[in-house]
């Protein structure tokens, strides 16, 4: 006799699936690739720092403000650019991978629903990427602190972390949607790259850049940079709406993906 599936059982499924997918990414080549990639923004910061140290005429003393600005514009700015490309590449097969290695049918015939399986993948990847982001932040903060004796301000650190995280979330949500709905790795890599590097530029030609995601990111970056320079945060209706857009866009993409994937005929 079949019993009803309880909420407790759903949580058990969620834990089993999330653990499995997390370990799967952690043990794959992607981790080595990501660790190599996060060295680049770290290297950029130290390069800029060594420039500051070697130019005492221009930077007689390295102040807290210098460190915060270097951290935000040097490290966070470069991370935003690099990480979104990196995440598009490494997460392009997050759903389509199972279809190319032919495990999909077996996976989706197991008790958890498709919705739960997809949700577990999202959670596993958010945990994985947050850990990577934390690692890169720790390397930079500790490195700067050892080299200059100054620690990056907590608010700058948190705002930087948030903006890199939100950028990652968008890149991942687009890759995830394309990977799930097209089940094609090539399309899942190409379309986001085309969007980030060409379509957004194309919008700019027609003065429509303020509807691109990158514009949203730039606006938020400007708010934070302004805070670093003047010490005041200007948050008008426009800025708040961009922040809401930054957070809600990936969430909406995730929900749309899960909704349509649930209805998809996975054999075709």
């Amino acid at each position, binding site marked *: 006799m*079949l019993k009803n599936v309880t909420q407790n059982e759903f949580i*058990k499924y969620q834990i*089993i*699936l999330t653990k499995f997918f997390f370990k799967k990414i952690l043990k794959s080549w992607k981790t080595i690739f990501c660790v190599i990639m996060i060295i680049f923004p770290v290297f950029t910061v130290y390069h800029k720092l060594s420039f500051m140290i070697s130019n005492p005429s221009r930077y007689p003393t390295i102040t807290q403000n210098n460190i915060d600005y270097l951290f935000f514009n040097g490290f966070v700015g470069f991370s935003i650019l690099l990480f979104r490309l990196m995440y598009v590449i490494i997460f392009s097969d997050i759903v389509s991978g199972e279809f190319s290695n*032919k495990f999909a049918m*077996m996976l989706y*015939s*197991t008790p958890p629903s498709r919705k739960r399986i997809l949700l577990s993948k999202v959670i596993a990847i958010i945990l994985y990427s947050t850990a990577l982001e934390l690692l890169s932040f720790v390397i930079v903060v500790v490195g700067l602190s050892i080299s200059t004796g100054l620690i990056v301000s907590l608010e700058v650190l948190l705002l930087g972390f948030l903006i890199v995280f939100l950028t990652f979330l968008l890149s991942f949500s687009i890759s995830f949607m394309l990977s799930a709905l097209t089940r094609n790795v090539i399309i899942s890599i190409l379309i986001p790259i085309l969007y980030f590097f060409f379509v957004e530029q194309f919008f700019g030609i027609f003065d429509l850049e303020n509807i691109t995601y990158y514009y949203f990111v730039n606006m938020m970056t400007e708010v934070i940079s302004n805070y670093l320079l003047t010490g005041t945060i200007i948050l008008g209706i426009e800025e708040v709406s961009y922040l809401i857009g930054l957070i809600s866009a990936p969430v909406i993409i995730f929900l749309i993906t899960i909704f349509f994937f649930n209805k998809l*005929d*996975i054999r075709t």
Partner: protein
Amino acid sequence: MSIITLKGLSKKYGKKTVVNNISLEIKKSCFAFLGPNGAGKTTTLLMILGLIKPLKGEITILGKNIKNQSKLVRQKVGFLPENVGFYPSKTGRELVTFILELRTKQKQTTEQIDSNLKWCGLKKEYWDKKTKSYSQGMRQRLGIALAFAGNPEVVVLDEPFSNIDPLGREDFINKINVKQKQGLTILISSHITSDIEKLADTVTIIDNGVVKISDSIYSLMKNLKYNEYEIFSNKFQSNYVITKINEIYSDKKEWFLERPTVLRDSLIVKTKFPKELKSYLENFNNFEMRPLTGALQKIYRFTMEG
């Protein structure tokens, strides 16, 4: 009682109807789908599993409607897809653990995991190796282990023996027969009639999405006037089998068309009462009775060619 019921099941891909109004009652048994490529076998199995939605019709498994209660059904159903593949970076052990945990919702002991790996006949030195190093046959063995992992009540096997060598195939047929005797319902789709006749109790032949014929293998044999069966034992010596069958022959002469003949390790009997003889043989442990090799191929050809 029916374990699976299909009522007026239909499915279209584009304009092509791949399954056309199939209705079947599947009882606790080994139920086989036979048919040429593109006949609609896999589509039917995938609809039964709730992996694809039918255009029309209703599916009930273990008393639950697959449309509304697919999650409940999937807890009790194992599946081996055709040409199964795996995450290349995962080991056989990791995959067995994963599927076992999903089916049982419990942490598995090493013994439980090992017994599944041992059952499928995968060599021990490969248990902890990544599946990318597995041969096609090893993948198929692991796939069968995953389908049976966690004691499901129904197991759906789509072309299960396609990449397995003849000895491995025989081994799996015996193992599946044992599982079936333990009370499992097995749905199997295959092109290989010689495997099906060693496993199936009921055979359904599908062509162009339509059921051409569906009946117990004994009724099919009887209707098409095939009456030769093979009796063998995996446990006893052939001498014992011969003595025992001769005893049955003396007792139930009316069941036999002629005296059983010896063929290597088994006996060939001609009977018009296969069902009765088979159930009588069940009183003697470890006796198997199957249609004589090649009979199902003839039935299949006759059905397809008309």
